[in-house]
Structure formats: C-alpha cells, structure tokens
C-alpha cells in the first residue's frame, strides 16, 4: 500500500539532503517528494509518498524521527488524505490532431497552457491516478516532455497536523 508521509521540518539549509540521504543509504524507495514552506515560515513540510512493499514504513518513520531537524511527522493511508499533484505535458500536435488532443485533455480535467504550430502543452492538477490517466491519453500523440511536481497532501476533515 502507498503511504503518504507529512514531515514537518525546521526550514534550514541541508535538511532536504539529510532526508534524501537517509532514504538513499537505507535503501528506502521514494515514489515522490515535494517540499514547501508552511503557514509558519520557519517550518517546511516535506511530503513523501512511499510504497510499503517490504514493510519498511515503520522503520522509515523511526529513522526520520531521529533526524534532529524533523519536528513531527505523520503517516497517512490514501483514504485519509486529499492529495494533489501538478503535471505539465508537452504533446506533439498538428492541424489534424490539435483539436482532438485539446478535447481529450479537457475531458480528462486538463487545461491548455501553451499552444504552438506543432505542440500543445497541457497542465493538470489532480490526484496521481488521474494524472496517470491523462498522460496515457496523451501518449499516442507523441510526448515531447513531461514534468511533475510530486504529491502534496492534507488530512481530510478539520483535524490538522501541528507542532505542539
């Protein structure tokens, strides 16, 4: 099962390298990683998505908690969160395919962000599953470039992860 870890960290230089270094040397795989500041500028939130194939999430969270810069973390299952990821897809397009692509993209929740004579750039902000779906719809037309942000997530409902 996929786990989403919300990790609140001190907003210092070097914190991200400590986290990514930990994953690399202990052989933990990261599906996605996204970082940004929170409402408190001294605190950043690192959102990590990991696949718990080897039952390693418990060890991952314990090791993360040992990093002095990690203030707090929470491990969420997919049902507990609202998650979003942003994707930008540059697809090959010509006079024959352009409107077809645009229509498909829009039906799948995307927007046209840029248009040229031989390409279309589609943007979409949604769950990872839906982005995958959009990407597969675009693939037959020729993907020129794809960039994604990594997932960010919040717990559902009024509860909130706080430092105290």
């Amino acid at each position, binding site marked *: 099962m996929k786990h989403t870890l919300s990790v609140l960290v*001190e907003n210092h230089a070097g914190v991200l390298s400590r986290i990514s*270094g930990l994953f690399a*040397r202990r052989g933990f795989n990261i599906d996605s990683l996204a970082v940004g500041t929170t409402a408190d500028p001294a605190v950043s939130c690192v959102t990590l998505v990991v696949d718990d194939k080897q039952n390693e999430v*418990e*060890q991952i969270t314990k090791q993360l*908690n040992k990093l*002095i*810069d990690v*203030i707090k973390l929470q491990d969420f299952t997919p049902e507990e969160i609202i998650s979003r990821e942003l994707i930008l897809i540059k697809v090959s397009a010509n006079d024959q395919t352009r409107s077809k692509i645009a229509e498909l993209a829009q039906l799948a929740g995307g927007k046209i962000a840029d248009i040229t004579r031989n390409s279309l750039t589609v943007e979409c902000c949604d769950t990872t599953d839906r982005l995958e779906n959009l990407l597969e719809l675009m693939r037959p037309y020729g993907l020129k470039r794809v960039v994604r942000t990594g997932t960010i997530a919040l717990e559902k409902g009024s509860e909130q992860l706080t430092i105290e």
Partner: protein
Amino acid sequence: MKMTVSQAMVSCLEQEGIRQIFGYPGATICPFYDALSRSDIRHVLVRTEQNAGHAANGYARMTGKPAVCVVTSGPGATNLITGISTAYMDSIPMVIITGQVVSNLLGSDVFQEVDITGACEPFIKHSYLLKDPTQVARVFKEAFYIAGTGRPGPVLIDVPMDVQKMEVDFSYPTEVSIRSYKPSSKGHPGQIKKAAAAIAEARHPVIIAGGGVFSAGAEKELLAFSQKTRIPVVNTLMGIGAVPSDYDLRLGMIGMHGVRHANYAVHQADLLILAGSRVADRAIPSPTVLARQKKIIHMDIDPAEIGKNLGVDIPVVGDIRLMLSQLTEEIDAAVSENWQDWLEELNGVRQKVHPDYGPRDGYVNPKLLMHQLNQRADRNAIIVSDVGQNQMWSANEFAIPQGRFLTSGGMGTMGYSLPAAMGANAACPDRQTIAVCGDGSFQMCSMELATLVQHRLPVKIVVFSNNRLGMVREHQTVAYDNNLTAVFLDGSPDFAKLAAAYQIPSVRIHENSEIDNALTRLLEAEGPFLLEAMVDPLETTL
C-alpha cells in the same frame, strides 16, 4: 560580555566543564587555538587527526559525558572521519569542532575546503555549520545536549575562520530546548508490566547486555535486576563488563566470537531480555530464527533499534537505567524459583568449557597472557583492545572485577587501541590503562607513542606479533581454502627499537614461561611500556 567567537567557543567548553581536549591545528582553526592557549583547558596534541577522535572516544567512555576533539578544515577534517564514524557506530558522545574556510568563499573549492558536514551526514548524530556568530552559544549548548542525551553520539560544529574572529555579545544559556528533539526517559508503565508478566511466565530467561548499559550508566541497576530475579546475563562485545566479571550469573560474550555457554544460553532460552543491545549481526547472526522461537523483550533508548533487525514481542523505549529499576520494582523475587534447573543446566555447560592455556612451541599463548594479565592488573584497570584476533583474545579473557573493557565494536576500526587508551587514561589518570593490539593494528597507531611521551600518559601496550593480519589470515584459511594473500607483515620494524626511539622501555617474549616477568615489568613501569609477545601465525581466535 563582548568577545570574539573563538573566545566564546573556549568559554562554551569551560561552561560545559571540559578540562581536556584532543586535537591537531591548522590555519582555519588558529583563531580558536589562539583563544584556547589562554584557557586552563589541557590540549593533547595527537599525531594524526583520526586519533583525536579515538582519544575523545576513550575519554567520553570513561567520563560518560561528551568529549571534545578539534581539527582544522580540509585534510584535518577528512582525517577525522574514521574517528567520527567509529564513535557513531558505538553511540559515543562527542563534540567535534572543525575549522572551515572563510564563509564568503564557501563553495568555491578554495585551499583546504571540504564539505565536512555533508561528508559526515550518514554517520553523525547532528552537525552545524556556524555561519552566524550570534548563534555560537546556542549551537554549542545544543551540540553538547544532543551528543550526551538520548542515544548518545557525535555532533560536529564546523566554524569558518572569519566567523571565529568576529565579535559577539556572549552569555552561555543555562537551558536548552529543541522542539524537534525530546529524548524519552522512563519506560511506559504498561510495557514494563507486560515485560514483568513475560518474565513471570518464562522458564529459561536470559539477559543480553549491550553497550547501552554503559551509555545509560545502568551497571548497578542491571546487577540489581539480575540479583533479584536470578536471571543469567550474557553480553555483547560492547557490553563486556556490564556486570562485574566475578558475578556468578555472568556467562560471558555471545556471538560469532563468543563463548560456548553464552551462545548456548541464547539458543536454549525461551525469553530474551535485550538491554541496550541493538542486535548487531556479529552478536546475533540469525535474528529471524530467534524471533520465531522465543519471546523477546527489547529495552532501548532508540525506538528505531527496536524491531529493526529482530521481531520483538515487548518493546520498551526509554532510558534503560530507569527502566531496569522500574522492572526490578515491578517483579516478584519469587520468580527466580522458576529457573533453578536452567541455572544448573547452564552451569553444567560452563563447567565443560576449558580455555586452552597450553604451551606453544617457540611462541607465547596469547590467551594465557591475557588470562594472567587480567589476574594481575589492578581491580579497576582499563583494557582497550584493538581489532582482530587480539580483540577476541582480550574480550574472552576479560575478568577484571571493577575494570572496563573498551574496543571499537560497530566499526571494528583498526588502530583504535592506543589513542583510545590515551583518552581513557587522560580521563582517569589513576587507573591502570592497558592497550592490547596486533602487529598490524599497532602500526596503524604507533605514531601516538610520541603523544604518550609528550603528555606523560602512562599507557601500557601489549602487542601480539604474529607477522600477519591474523584475523584476515584466519578467514582466508577457513573461507578461501588457505589462499593467503596480502596478510603478511614482513618489513615491520623492530618494535623494541621503535619504542626505544621514543624512550619507551619494552620487553619481547617468545615463551609462556616469560609471561610472568614481562607482566611484572609492564605493570610496574612508571610510564608507558611496551610488551611484545611473539604469537604463532597459525594461532586461532577461539
């Protein structure tokens, strides 16, 4: 008070009660050294930076508090890396100060610049790059706090040379509070109850004592727990001496190089109580098998160690000194009735184990030498062993009632013994301190003979010379069909002459019959002394 950052750094050390530090200077740490020269703190100049780390390691293990080493940037810092990783693997509290190039040139590969905080990231508890002079007091306070609390470990403070020269308004904080670091102390009462219940149900319980017993200063509590419950105690390499060596329920070291009755106890046990032991592969080679067969109580300060290598039934997180007292209180002394047969059985196995102290043709039997050394050393002597066969001969013969046994457990760092013994002796000048090494490991640290002389540290040295990297030789014999390669130490100097070049007296022996006299000279020497014992290259570890 107004002062420079380097004066403030020295002040911080003084406020932390630091009396001695180990180091090696260079340009980028010169402002600090300049300030240090005006302080009462004793500086011990080692002969290579790695050994500043090992000396601080030995010092910290004897005092139980963070010890300090100081080196310059670039090669000074990278030379220290083995000292840092050695301390990290054995959870030794240490504060490391490194000089760094001037801050506005950071990142431009100037002379002697190295990203030491980055390089040490995987094997250090925490590190700081001190760019803001106003943070000096906070950073030092935090560094000592982090190094010495929770699961202890090394903490590094990298200070650019220009920052050391800046002026600050200094006052040392009395309190420290780090919102992201709150080490646990007492064990959860519910878990303690569960542990007590599991003990009451057991028939063949065993305590496995690790290095954490020393980190927590829990030797007394461990003994009290075992005395009340009559549960026998085995130890890991790091846990040697956790209970006094003349204690009747002490069975000795487990693991790959452990003694038979201790390993037998672990294998036949129905309940293992791990106290400050991280279930390292050399101590417990097949944890999954154990987990299936027995109930396991794991007491440790570091929750990440619990369940990492071994499935655990009852995890108890906290300071094991407190947790052992909680458990001793919780438990009924009557439980000891449940394993009288077990103790008899273990005693029976122990009776059948006879160390081989026999003669060797033209060589000294190293086990016999260690046995006699342990009989004759002071009751509170410190043995610091190196790595290799010499380590296991030292470990399995350790029998000094109030003594300490120091070694590099997790890293197995050759060259540890002499510098760590220097540090231990600097911390406890009244305690006899004996470094034991092989002829390979001795040559990894023999430059420190000069430090012993310069700083009048009366460390005794035993070198077992087999003209081999003995433990690797043995491994090649067993696992590579005796294809011996790169393990011959031909070309080594005459150690007696080498010692003499430092004005250190020595003796070389070839026969068991010479041990007695040689030990007299070693133990009665005023200053440092070197005893070289010639050992058969085919001598086995066990």
